[in-house]
């Protein structure tokens, strides 16, 4: 090619070579200037129409007169292919400049603002770069940034681009994916079309790379890189990177395009603000009517819930999930995670004239009760924590362990069991909560002792036939019952052992792990103790040890069959110290004769080296026929049985430690709920209010998370 003339340019020397083309230095003999010519061979992977598209795009890009955009002067065709005559930029690529470990922050800002300025011009003209990367950006000897190859990526795939890194491209016309994988935005990987915000993502990658010397999303294979882009949060950049620059990078790398800057001009302004010493927030501007969303770099999927669906609500130590299925409970779709990084120890589905999910969230920032009326798409985020100890108690809320619905005909009544052990109630559907003083003032309270999980009131059981009667259980405090709607309480622990006490059968102080009651047989309760499984047939007046034949009577959850008051399920663990499935065999034990005998249920459950633990609220039943039973493990595995425990399937694994599980069938918002679990099916309360008396005012909803 050397010496040949293309158009009116004589080729002088070869500068570089990429996948589909060669770049030459040339001399424009008419305009008397040095130029660069990229020659794209016809056999390089695109057909005639793609070639025409390339010509069109190049011509469009040639209109982008901007000091930071490498100008395209001319495009043309030869017998061998296409050629593009462009401004000759002599300098070093940002890729080469940052490879040795990142650039000084002031340089990152200086180059960043120029790149953003170039993107602003292009986007204003409707041109998206689609392959912005450090190797496409050159800095001339006088410090001027030039962005190369504008618009060229749109149709022709990555092959034309000089890719020092892996390219992920097809050459199939307009729908093709083009670009360079480590710079690709999540929406492109999902198959959505690229738009200007995809360029802003790439700009975020470029800024990160310039600041740190390495890419924010790395991997050994394309799959690993893609996974990282879709799911991972880049390692934070600390000093000397100014917090403002890190905030800009974070927001540019928001997984969802709506959470990013929406225009390149915003990025340009933000970088200029950091250059001037002003502080830049990662959040969108403050003058919006709605509360701004924080740029949280994670993706939340929402399950598309519709009438007739079956749901499992999953609380974990790192957030909540909503697992949706059809009525057959065979195919599952996972929504979430909600409340990223917050522990969710309590969940409830409230269908008493509404479709509301209640969740407790616990983190550094305290414990909150939150709710969603749209299956997780938005959650309340109240300014003031709704469940709180009055100042005179001297206590502060550590966790909400249980959310229990009030009676069916009192839809505004709910209860929360909390740590440190106390009971709260609301009579206005969660607007205001009050401490149940009758229990709080009990003379036993100062002598309750925290268990391993803290001093938790974790079980609240209503008697559906007697609104005055209610049970609660505390670890370690034991079982208490009220017969006067909470005004006074009595310890009901006769027959329950407390092996850690000098008196093995004390009046109170037992470490009860869970109690449950059958709505059709409300004088009968089952109880899983720190050691021992118990049944009472007289409203907890006396308890009988029924751990006949289980391999260990230590365990956490106990659930009852929704239709058979003689049937209950437990998951024994080996010992107080070990607290894992006995002998590494994960087995549920079922009694169908009220505890006279127990049978192991293991078909489909791992029976070798499965050292799993099922925590006290991580097991639930549904109301289907035959009944479904579900449990989650501390290792994040979720198992289910659709035949009352005869056989099991792993529904999901890889979740964070599961601490709470609830089921729901989605009916019309106005109908009565199913019995999601026996302990939610009761009724309690002294005042009756109908749904029509509900307040319409709800706490402000946030679209965050």
């Amino acid at each position, binding site marked *: 090619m050397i010496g040949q003339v293309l158009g009116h340019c004589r080729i002088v020397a070869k500068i570089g070579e990429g996948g589909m083309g060669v770049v030459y230095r040339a001399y424009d003999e008419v305009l008397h200037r040095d130029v660069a010519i990229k020659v794209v061979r016809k056999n390089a992977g695109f057909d005639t129409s793609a070639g025409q598209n390339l010509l069109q795009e190049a011509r469009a890009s040639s209109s982008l007169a901007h000091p930071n955009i490498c100008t395209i002067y001319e495009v043309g065709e030869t017998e061998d292919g296409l050629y593009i005559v462009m401004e000759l930029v002599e300098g070093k690529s940002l890729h080469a400049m940052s490879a040795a470990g990142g650039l000084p922050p002031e340089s990152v800002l200086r180059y960043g603002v120029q790149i953003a300025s170039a993107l602003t011009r292009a986007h204003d003209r409707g041109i998206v770069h689609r392959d912005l990367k450090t190797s496409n950006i050159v800095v001339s000897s006088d410090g001027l940034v030039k962005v190369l190859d504008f618009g060229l990526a749109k149709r022709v795939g990555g092959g034309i681009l000089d890719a020092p890194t892996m390219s992920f491209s097809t050459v199939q016309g307009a729908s093709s994916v083009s670009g360079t994988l480590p710079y690709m935005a999540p929406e492109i990987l999902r198959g959505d079309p690229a738009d200007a915000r995809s360029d802003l993502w790439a700009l975020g990658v470029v800024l990160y790379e310039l600041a740190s010397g390495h890419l924010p999303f790395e991997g050994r294979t394309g799959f690993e890189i893609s996974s990282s882009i879709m799911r991972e949060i880049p390692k934070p950049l600390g000093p000397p990177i100014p917090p403002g620059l890190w*905030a800009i990078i974070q927001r540019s790398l928001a997984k969802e395009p709506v959470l990013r800057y929406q225009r390149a001009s915003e990025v340009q302004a933000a970088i200029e603000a950091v250059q001037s010493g002003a*502080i*830049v*927030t*990662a*959040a*969108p*501007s*403050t003058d*919006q009517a709605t*509360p*701004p*969303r*924080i*740029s*949280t770099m994670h993706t939340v999927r929402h399950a598309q819930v519709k009438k007739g669906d079956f749901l499992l609500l999953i609380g974990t130590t790192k957030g909540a999930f909503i697992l949706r299925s059809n009525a057959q409970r065979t195919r599952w779709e996972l929504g979430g995670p909600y409340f990223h990084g917050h522990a969710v120890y309590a969940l409830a589905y409230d269908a008493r004239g509404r479709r509301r999910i209640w969740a407790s969230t616990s983190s*550094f*920032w*305290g414990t909150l009760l939150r709710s969603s009326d749209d299956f997780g798409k938005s959650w309340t*985020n109240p*300014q*003031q*924590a709704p469940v*709180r*100890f*009055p*100042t005179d108690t*001297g*206590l*502060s*809320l550590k966790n909400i362990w249980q959310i229990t619905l009030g009676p069916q005909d009192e839809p505004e009544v709910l209860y929360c069991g909390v740590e440190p052990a106390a009971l709260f109630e609301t009579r206005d559907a969660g607007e205001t909560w009050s401490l149940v003083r009758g229990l709080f003032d009990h003379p036993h309270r100062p002598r309750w002792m925290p268990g391993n999980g803290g001093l938790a009131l974790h079980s609240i059981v209503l008697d559906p036939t007697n609104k005055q009667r209610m049970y609660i259980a505390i670890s370690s405090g034991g079982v208490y019952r009220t017969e006067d709607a909470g005004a006074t309480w009595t310890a009901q622990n006769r027959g329950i052992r407390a092996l850690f006490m000098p008196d093995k059968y004390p009046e109170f102080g037992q470490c009860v792990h869970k109690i449950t009651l059958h709505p059709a047989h409300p004088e009968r309760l089952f109880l899983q103790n720190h050691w021992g499984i118990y049944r009472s047939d007289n409203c907890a007046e006396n308890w009988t040890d029924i751990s006949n034949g289980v391999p260990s009577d230590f365990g956490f959850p106990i659930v009852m069959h929704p239709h058979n008051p003689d049937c209950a399920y437990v998951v024994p663990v080996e010992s107080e110290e070990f607290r894992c499935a006995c002998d590494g065999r994960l087995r549920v034990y079922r009694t169908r004769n009220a505890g006279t005998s127990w049978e192991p249920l293991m078909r489909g459950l791992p029976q070798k080296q499965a050292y799993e633990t099922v925590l006290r609220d991580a097991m639930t039943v549904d109301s289907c026929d035959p009944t479904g039973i579900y449990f989650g493990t501390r290792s994040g595995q979720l198992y289910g049985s659709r035949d009352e425990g005869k056989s099991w399937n792993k529904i999901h694994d890889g979740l964070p430690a599961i601490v709470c599980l609830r089921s729901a069938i989605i009916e019309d918002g106005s109908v009565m709920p199913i019995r999601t679990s026996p302990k939610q099916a009761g009724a309690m309360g002294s005042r009756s209010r109908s749904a029509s008396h509900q307040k319409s005012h709800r706490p402000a909803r*946030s679209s*965050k998370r």
Partner: protein
Amino acid sequence: MPVTVHIPGALREFTAGRATVEIAFSNGTVADALTLLWTLYPGVRDRVVNEQGEVRQHINIFVGNENIRYTGGLASPVADGSQISIVPAVSGG
């Protein structure tokens, strides 16, 4: 000179997106400055302190570069022009 409070990202939902809040304030304590912050942005309060008004266990408050846990807690003095930072502790699992 006003006191500047730096708001962590997790709480900016309650400060209309602001990363910093300037409080007109002259010589007082951290508690005084924070009370003014709660007045402006009430949602921040329950995230930083508990019902008893104590700074949450895993939240640190700095005046300049000093953690107030070691300088007198909420009674620590705040001079004009100080920078107060609310920072979650590095811990967890």
